[in-house]
């Protein structure tokens, strides 16, 4: 078999259902092997799109997402996608072509040191130097990507390796002596955690993306019921626990619910599961959960005690650990605590004011109702992302696809394409801002040509809303570089405040038409539901643009450096 054939063989052996990529001189042999190989291939319009699509595929399915790019510019175009997957611990294998081994280091045409470039944004990376090593390294790439704390792995394969032949078989398994992720939890620690849980009076469960990647939602729900503990999640944990459940506190942190933030600040025990205590969650760390002892369950020992003090660390696969823990935890009753929490919920619901035009929050609620909270929701980054996180009420895992750690604008749409490929029969929606959607808009061609019926809902505020929000609150409304319609004719002092500004660029409906897909637009609240119905009923991709006010902001908001209970609740 040639190296190129081995690569395709590996994809088949790993059960890869979709490959996203873009060709070039240093992967032309792989594309040749792909010709009529029967591995479904999706040609994106940009390698960044391929990386995000592989990532979205992985998030929606739980399988490893795979992307393929040529050396040099093709490979460097993957970088943002790999960093996005790395920060959210998503299993992705990126295959890149490289210049022939004899030319490496010579600044050859389209040579880039991908090992060096991606070292800090991948879980691991390989350069293949011998074709006989290729089968084992391919197997290792898949194994490392999906095991332990998942993450992206890049495998860089020089052209001559792709052309050389090998008699080495593709291995059934690999044994990497220096890589042995802990799976089972340490029983004495689990017992200690159970004992501490039985003494808790004001417990809160804080669940994150680790619950989703470990497939532990059922175990989490059982623990919450047994303990009668309220459950909050990080942005990455949305969907790990049904947000419609009476025990749900929804999201915590900078744009979390007031009641989740209050509960964390008053808790005497925090059971943190598959989270990493990002600064967007904790606010000022020294003020975070001041009354609580913390039990921290995670597969990665390095996340424990990285940001917060932990009384009981518990390293292991979350599903394994929770299964064991659930056997030791008895049914508890925390009525006084739950009543306090219920009071906070009553007094501080998520809310927004109607301004006569379309409220973005109402759009999200309408989508949630129309889809029974069952659609796969991808988002871009900014206000669109936070409103989606706050108002959709996620009820099942792997229905929330959003760049949490890196906050990558332009992620949502290609990720939605990947999610749609993973689940052809399901409704996949990208909730977008007019800024973010333009960062990977070229993938409209991909969606249109493969007839991937992703629906793009653009909340068009004609600005980079989230940055504008910060400028409104912290920078005296000095709106600098956030108006997406500013042109040479605009008066110098215009702060982009004028909703009567006539210009909208681009015209998203005409843009849709250019790709032969339907486009809808409205600025009238009563048209929201009918338009969404039409778009959702369409058998193919569609763009929906809702024009909203620039003055809509995301609240609550914990200012950077403040404690979680020091929230802004609206514009002063």
């Amino acid at each position, binding site marked *: 078999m040639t190296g190129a054939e081995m690569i395709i063989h590996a994809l088949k052996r790993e059960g890869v259902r979709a490959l996203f990529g873009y060709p070039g001189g240093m992967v032309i042999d792989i594309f040749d092997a792909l010709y009529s190989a029967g591995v479904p291939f999706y040609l994106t319009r940009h390698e960044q799109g391929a990386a995000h699509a592989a990532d979205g595929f992985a998030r929606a399915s739980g399988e490893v997402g795979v992307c393929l790019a040529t050396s040099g510019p093709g490979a460097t175009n993957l970088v943002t996608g790999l960093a996005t997957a790395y920060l959210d611990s998503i299993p992705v294998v990126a295959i890149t072509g490289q210049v022939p081994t004899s030319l490496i280091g010579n600044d050859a045409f389209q040579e880039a040191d991908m*090992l*060096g470039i991606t*070292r*800090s944004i991948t*879980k*691991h990376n390989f*350069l293949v130097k011998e074709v006989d090593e290729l089968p084992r390294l391919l197997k290792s790439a898949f194994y*490392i990507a999906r095991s332990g704390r998942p993450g992206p792995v890049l495998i860089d394969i020089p052209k001559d390796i792709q052309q050389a032949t090998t008699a080495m078989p593709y291995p059934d398994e690999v044994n*990497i*002596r*220096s*890589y042995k992720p802990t799976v089972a939890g340490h029983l004495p620690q689990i017992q200690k955690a159970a004992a501490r849980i039985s003494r808790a009076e004001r417990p809160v469960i804080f669940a994150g993306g680790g619950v989703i990647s470990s497939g532990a939602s059922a175990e989490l729900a059982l623990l919450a019921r047994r303990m009668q503990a309220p459950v909050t999640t990080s942005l990455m944990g949305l969907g790990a626990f049904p947000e419609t459940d009476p025990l749900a506190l929804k999201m915590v942190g900078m744009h979390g619910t007031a009641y989740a933030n209050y509960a964390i600040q008053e808790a005497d025990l925090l059971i943190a599961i598959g989270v990493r205590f990002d600064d967007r969650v904790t606010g000022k760390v020294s003020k975070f959960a001041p009354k609580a002892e913390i039990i921290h369950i995670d597969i*990665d*020992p*390095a996340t424990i*005690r*990285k940001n917060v003090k932990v009384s009981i660390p518990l390293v292991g696969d979350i599903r394994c650990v929770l299964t064991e823990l659930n056997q030791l935890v008895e049914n508890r009753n925390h009525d006084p605590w739950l009543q306090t929490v219920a009071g906070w919920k009553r007094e501080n619901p998520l809310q927004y004011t109607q301004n006569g035009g379309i409220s973005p929050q109402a759009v999200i609620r309408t989508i949630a109702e129309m889809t029974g909270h069952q659609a796969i929701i991808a988002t871009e980054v900014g206000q669109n992302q936070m409103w989606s996180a706050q108002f959709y009420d996620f009820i099942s895992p792997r229905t929330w696809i959003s760049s949490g750690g890196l906050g990558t604008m332009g992620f949502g749409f290609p990720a939605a394409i990947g999610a749609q490929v993973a689940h052809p029969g399901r409704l996949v929606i990208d909730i977008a801002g007019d800024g973010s959607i333009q960062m990977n808009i070229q993938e409209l061609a991909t969606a249109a040509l493969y007839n991937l019926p992703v629906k793009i809902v653009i909340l068009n505020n004609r600005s980079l809303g989230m940055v504008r929000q910060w400028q409104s609150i912290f920078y005296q409304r000095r709106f600098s570089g956030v108006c997406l319609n500013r042109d040479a004719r605009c008066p110098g002092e215009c702060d982009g405040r004028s909703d009567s500004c006539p210009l909208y660029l681009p015209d998203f409906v005409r843009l849709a038409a250019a790709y032969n897909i339907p486009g809808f637009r409205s600025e009238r609240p009563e048209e929201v539901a009918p338009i969404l119905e039409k778009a959702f009923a369409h058998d193919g991709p569609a763009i929906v643009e809702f024009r909203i006010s620039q003055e809509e902001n995301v609240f609550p908001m914990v200012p950077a450096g403040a404690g979680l209970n020091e929230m802004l609740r609206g514009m002063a």
Partner: protein
Amino acid sequence: MRHIINLEVENSAGVMARIVGLFSARGYNIESIVAGKTVEECTARITLVVIGDDKIIEQVNKQLNKLIDVIRVTDVTREDFVNRELLLVKIHCPPARRTEASLVGNIFGAKVVDISAKSLTFELTGSESKITAFLQTLRPFGIREVARTGPIAMVRDFNPRSSE
């Protein structure tokens, strides 16, 4: 605190870059790094000297362990250990001062490895404190050039307190 950390790593190209990259990306302070072969062809030994409080050292240990090419991490500072460093030092030394210089060398057990009309070069192996003391003592001669390897270390097997 100063910690000496031993790493057993896969002897792969780029493993050093991974380790150094980790330190620069996470802002850890690294004082010295020594790498060498072991008896096993595919394994290498790296000794790091790292400075940080307990919290940082815990993270350093965990993050090093997380690198796929790292087989084992041992913080020898937490155990009873021996450490040695190799020094080459060239001093100003006209023929008239040779006797004086070799006396100092003898006291420390240093070897003379090069000699010229103007200079003398010593080789010395020892604990870091011994090396530092030797350099201190040579200062009056005028030190022209110093090369230190940074320490390598090994945990002691013999423990007088637990010997039965």
